[in-house]
């Protein structure tokens, strides 16, 4: 069987993706240093605190307490890099046409459920898909919106007077902070699922995010030698 090298990810996408990893890590880490100073959020079920963000052992284990000033310094430094990297990513997707591989399309939500069932090994067949399946399309678009949401809610907390209209739109200062926090939790959940999926997809898939290429079985149509155009067969 002949093989082909398929170009999976462009150089820009790979750099933007990998640069985003330490940037998002630093934003979340510095965010935790800040959050510690007023750690008020919990998951409540019927009015009872089910899980508090975060338990004392968690802070102690990571060495978070009493580092608010450092957290603010880091947060307001890396915010620029995080926002600029994200902005370049969106502009690049739009300009290069690569958004076509990522945007959900009609039917994506239905097929995404089938993808989830496939991943859970409940159904045997993966629904038809392009470069990314529909669950991926939804996740990769959602994570861009989450990034935008983090920047917007962050700005509303950072400049609640000069951007008072924005802060009000988000429900006020306290709500904006709440939204900023939960978007971060969503980022962490995205990260966990992403890592599990990458681990399950295997080495070739991971390697393609580094090299940009993957080896695939050659398209049999392309390997048929010397087919005159006049004799072309519609397939």
């Amino acid at each position, binding site marked *: 069987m002949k093989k082909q090298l398929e170009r999976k990810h462009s150089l820009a996408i790979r750099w933007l993706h990998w640069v985003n990893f330490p940037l998002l890590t630093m934003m979340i880490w510095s965010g935790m240093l800040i959050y510690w100073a007023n750690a008020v959020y919990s998951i409540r079920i019927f009015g009872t605190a089910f899980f508090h963000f975060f338990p004392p052992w968690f802070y102690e284990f990571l060495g978070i307490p009493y580092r608010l000033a450092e957290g603010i310094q880091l947060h307001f*430094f890396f915010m620029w890099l995080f926002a600029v990297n994200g902005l370049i990513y969106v502009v690049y997707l739009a300009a290069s046409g690569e958004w076509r591989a990522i945007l959900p399309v009609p039917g994506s939500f239905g097929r995404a459920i089938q993808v989830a069932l496939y991943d859970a090994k409940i159904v045997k067949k993966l629904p038809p898909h392009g470069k990314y399946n529909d669950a991926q399309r939804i996740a990769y678009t959602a994570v861009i919106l989450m990034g935008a949401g983090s920047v917007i809610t962050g700005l509303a907390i950072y400049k609640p007077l000069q951007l008072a209209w924005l802060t009000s739109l988000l429900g006020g200062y306290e709500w904006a902070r709440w939204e900023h926090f939960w978007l971060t939790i969503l980022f962490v959940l995205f990260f966990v699922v992403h890592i599990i999926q990458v681990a399950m997809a295997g080495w070739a898939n991971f390697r393609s995010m580094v090299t940009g290429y993957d080896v695939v079985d050659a398209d049999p149509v392309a390997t048929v030698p010397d087919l005159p155009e006049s004799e072309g067969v519609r397939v």
Partner: protein
Amino acid sequence: MKKEEVLLKKVRELNDTEGDERGNTATILTEKKEVGPPVDAATAKREMFVRSRRSFLVGGAAALVGVFGWRWMPAETKYNLLRRTFEFNEKVSQFFYRPSRLAPEFPPSRISQRRVNGMIGIDTELDRAAWTLSVGGLYGRVDDLVLTLDDIKALPRTEMITELKCIEGWSIIVQWAGVRFSDFAAKYLPNTTDGSRPDVAGSPEKLVPYVSLSTPDNGYFVGWDMPSVLHPQTLLAYEMNGEPLLPEHGAPLRLASPTKYGIKLLKRIGRIEFTTERSRDYWAESGYDWYSGH
């Protein structure tokens, strides 16, 4: 076998093995697929190996530079970088700053439970009768002007119910009454940078750019930029939630403003000085943002 038959057979095989996995969403958005020429497996493997080696070396080197560059950056260099970023952020904030933008005000029903957060500079007992306010850096004066609370209360009274935001992340809604700092500055004129007669309302940009405030014992001191000080919601407050200030909330006179975090809202003001130099700030010296402006 004819070429057409070879082709059709291969297409059928393809369909049998892969089913209809491909081509659905891809065709809707005309997604591109870029593949190289067909080669034998060994060639593909070798080419992939060369590409992998290059990419992992470049990527690994970039990761090492990033991680160790950050970890081994001298503490002072890192501190200066982050400090300069605060100052850069401050410049961006000031570029977009408009004094006409106001913080939201709230109905009395929204007033929160009061909250005390820190007694730095006010941990000695307050002698209300002995308290005075010294003002330095006034136009046409070398020495401090000494004012009493009655002098302050003689100025127009302003009330507001605004949100006090602590840098720790919590906020409360407080009702304040006092004197707009801009009204105070219109009566007790700050120096100008060029020595011309001050016009606080007309050309505030000519005033000296900074204001320094400190507690009587100098235990707590803050620096402010003039635009934030002259913001219509920055008050020299003497009442909180409808009653005279309590000692722990900064009696007899304190700053109240939704333009900055609580760390900037000095309690028990002992001295105000209008300065050309960026003035010292208690929390900025512990690594917080000097500007801390909203």
